Each structure stands twice: as C-alpha cells, then as structure tokens.
C-alpha cells in the first residue's frame, strides 16, 4: 500500500506517542524521539514496523515522539496514522485490529 498523504496521530502528553507518517521510497525509516529510548527504543520501533507491515506499507518516513507510551498505545496511534495516510479511515482494516 502506498501512502497518499502525510498524516498524524497522537499527542505529546505523558504516556502517549505522536506518530507522523509521510511518503518514503526507501523502506520504513523511523525517526524516534523517546523518553525511554535506552530501555524501550527497540521495542517501540518493532511495534511501529510490525503495525505498518500489517497494512502492507513498505515505504514510509515515520516521525515518532514518545512520552512513555505502552505498546498498545504505540500500536493504536500507528494504526490511526496509517489509515489516515492511506485515506482509508472509513474502512477500518479489521485484520490489523
């Protein structure tokens, strides 16, 4: 699936993560800024990559600003950003859920 437009989900509140998805042409590149980078950085990148893969997104630039979000939140924000970027918000991809 190709990204149609830049899309954002999430806030900069504590325990949230803000995901910005934009077009890319060289795989999934994640620019992560996290308050728990040393402890959970790899895990956060993995959740984002896995979630995008479930939507069939192979090329994307991801800007992620994390304030200590749990995995379920990282996944939810990534899904919301993905559906907005794919312009499929009115057709939730139940498989990914």
């Amino acid at each position, binding site marked *: 699936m190709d990204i149609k437009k830049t899309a954002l989900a999430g806030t900069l509140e*504590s*325990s949230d993560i803000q995901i910005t998805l934009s077009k890319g042409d060289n795989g999934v590149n994640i620019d992560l800024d996290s*308050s*728990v980078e*040393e*402890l*959970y*950085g*790899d*895990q956060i990148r993995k959740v984002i990559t896995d979630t995008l893969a479930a939507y069939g997104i192979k090329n994307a630039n991801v800007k992620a600003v994390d*304030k*200590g*979000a*749990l*995995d379920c939140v990282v996944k939810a924000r990534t899904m919301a950003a993905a559906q907005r970027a794919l312009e499929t918000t009115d057709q939730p991809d139940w498989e990914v859920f």
Partner: protein
Amino acid sequence: MKNNVGREISDEILNSTNHKPFETTEIGHPTVHYTGHNVRVTKGDDKLVDSLDQVIKDNLKDGMTISFHHHFRNGDYVFNMVMDKIIKMGYKDLTLAPSSLTGVMNDKVIEAIKAGTITNITSSGMRGSLGEAVSHGLLKNPVIFRSHGNRARSIENGNIKIDVAFLGVPNSDRMGNANGMNGESALGSLGYALVDAQYANKVVLLTDTIVDYPNTPASIKQTQVDYVVKVDKVGDPDRIGSGATRFTKDPKELKIAKMVNDVIVNSPYFKNNFSFQTGTGGASLAVTRFLRQSMLDNDIKASFTCGGTTSPIVKLLEEGLVKKVMDVQDFDKGAASSMKSNPGQTEIDGSWYADPDNKGAMVDQLDIAILSALEIDTDFNVNVLTGSNGVIRGAVGGHQDAGTAKMTIISAPLTRGRIATVVPAVNSITTPGSSIDVLVTEVGVAVNPARKDLIEAFKKAPSIPLVSIEELQKRAEGIVGKPKPIEYTDRTVALVEYRDGTLIDEVKQIKD
C-alpha cells in the same frame, strides 16, 4: 566480591577507597572515636567582614575540603556565589562535601569540575544536568553518596574533614550567633549545617541580615564561628519548596495514601504516643491528611514526628495531634516560617536525627516511616538514587536512616509512565530490603515475608489487599514490558555507602 545484598563490589574499589562491603543493618555497640578540629582563638571583635574574597584567600588552600548546606534548597544563593569566586580565584583539587546538592547548584558544580577546582564530591544526592554529567564520567574520582545520618557520622569520625564551611544563614549577629527561623529568608531548621558548624576547622557564615548582639535563639553559636560575611541576599524562601503542600487530586496517589493509612491504623504501632516520619510528594502529604482523621476518630495522639518537615505536619502539631515535631529540615515555606512561633517545632541536628554512631538518634525511637522509592525489587531492596536508565537522579537523604523504624512503609505507584517501580532487581541499592517492611502500591500491599506478625495483623483487615511482591513485579512487567538492559563501562562513577560507612553498591558509567 559480592556484598550481603548480592552486589558486586570490586576489590580495587574496596582497597583504594578503604571501604568494607555492606554486611548488616545492625549497628551493634562498637566504641568509636570522634575527631577533633582546629580552633583559631579570638575574642571575636573582628569577625564581621565585607570581603568574601579576602576570607577565601586567607583560609582556603588547594586540596582542602569545603562544605555547604542545602537548607535553602532551590532558593539557595550562597553556593553559587561562593563557588563562583573559588573557581575564578583558580583553586584546584578541592573536595566538595555539602549536605546535598540541589538543582540550582548543578551548573556551577559542573563548571568547577571542568575547571579542576573540584576533584572529589561527597553528597546525599544529585539530580538533573549534574547527575547526567557524572553518570557519563565527568568526574574522575567516584562520588561518595552518604545518608544524612552517615554524613554526620563521617564528619564526627573524620572521614569527612571539613577545612572551611560556608554556611548561609537568614540572620546573625556580629559574633556569629545565628538561627534559621528568623529573618526575610527564614529556612526553619538548620539541622544539617549544625554538624558543620561544630566540626569544621573554619566556619564562615554568610548572611543578609545582621541583628543586634546577642542574637537568640542561637542554633549556631559565636563559639563556633570564625567569620560573618554580609552579603546582599542569601536565598529566596519562596523556592525552599515547590509549593508541594497542595493536597493531591490524583486518584492513584489518593488510593495509595488511603491504603498506607489503612496499613498504619491496622498495625500494632497505631496507639497513643506513637511516632512517625513522612517524606514529601503528593501521596505522602495525603497520608498525613488521612492519618489526621484516623487519629481524631480513635482519639490517638502522636508523641513526635521527625525528619524533614512539611506544612501539614506543622498543622498536626498546632492541633495538638502531634506533641513534638523534631525538625531537621523544612520542605516548604510554611514549615520554615512556623518554627519561630511553635515551641514544639524543635530544631535537631543531623547527628541527633539519624547518626548511627552516637548514643541514640531520633530514628532509633521511630515507630513508623513512610518513604518513597524510584524502584523496589522482589527482595524489598529500594533505590532512590539512580533512574531505571542508570543515571544518577536522586538522593539517599534520610532513607537508610528512617528505614530503621519499627515499620518502614514504601509508598509508590506500580508503574510511572512506562517505567516499572517494582522490578526484579533495582538499578542500584540505596536501602537494603531487610529495612523495608511494607510496600503499598495502588493495586496491592506486599509485606516483607520476614514480618509474619504484620502479615497476620493485616489479614484481619479486609481493606488491605495483600499480595506477594513477586505478583506485583509480574503485574508491572505485564503492563510495561521487559526493558533492554543498560550498557555500562567498567568505570565506577559513584559509591553508595550504607549508613554505617560500608559499601552497599557501586554506580557505573553509562556507555555512550
């Protein structure tokens, strides 16, 4: 070798710093020797001076040990003023031995380390940019972290030999009679500074308010003081506390506080003339409020509280619910300014408060201590010094000392954001698990298995949800996941002493 709480302490460190590994919380009855100090004899007519530069020049030499107190907390002006002059005058290789380091001092300490002015530090703690810098290897020699009681002990036995103490006071007369309770910059108790005044070779008071001779009450006495330096302003009393006396509305903190109160009320210690100590922070202050109601309902009064004092504690004193507040430091402006009008709010020094090596400290008489934790592990060991990322960001404070109370309660949320509080092994051990009796989190109460009496007592109270600490740890991990292990270098950047001076842990440099 491994010490008695399972921490690896290198032989090289033990030998080079002349430490023994931690063994036990039992102090026993050793005979110890208190060190003496030099006294330059004077009748005192020339103590009052204007030039801090001259005082430094006449008394400070390279390699000496200097001390400060942290009673002005984040409102302190004295540390930066003095340290700035010392750096500019080109001094080298000084040992910095303050009672603690607060955030406002961070930049100046970093500057002094970079300039080679400070090459050794002993403190209760450090936070923010300074903790980051030290954790990444800024200081060549390891910092020694000591509890408030251990600092008093180390000054008495000469492990910390203070050459010059620079002590900011809100008032003094021309001879050096001074207290913390009067004046525009009142800070309340001068508890930790009193030990410096008693044992330093040279005592320099800095004050913005010179009062008529003789000044009473005199916490610091003219017999101890070499110089009185008049400065523009010693501190900002509004920044002693961060306005933390507000009653929390956070439902999680309230739930924890209510459970802590249930634990206290259902313990064998909740009876007339019991004693307790609380810390700062939302949950702790809320406990005070719940406890007040329980004391009223059961017609129970406390004989004393001790340690750091907050406004809600002073309120209990004014209501007659607490008979004496044994006050070593004040955490907010309200508590600082009330000392002068409350005879029961009694100033105690660091030794009287918490020193393990004297003829009996207040903490030895304490029934209940309510303390916080950055982390607690399944052996009940507590960390209040380093973050989960291994960076120094806290203070030992009186944690190890108050931990000797008959019932020590840790109140802490199960997780903070994505950081677990209850963990398999704490990042660094501050207080050994054998000191800790009860952990209260918002999802349950865990009692140290060694305290079968408390487990039996709490089983009879349906409001106390007893769980094992292992269950709490698993539950926390289920929420936040397993963190990646932190990478360190081999270099030791800090030593954590237990209150008896043995080594309980080492802090290693973070790998960049």
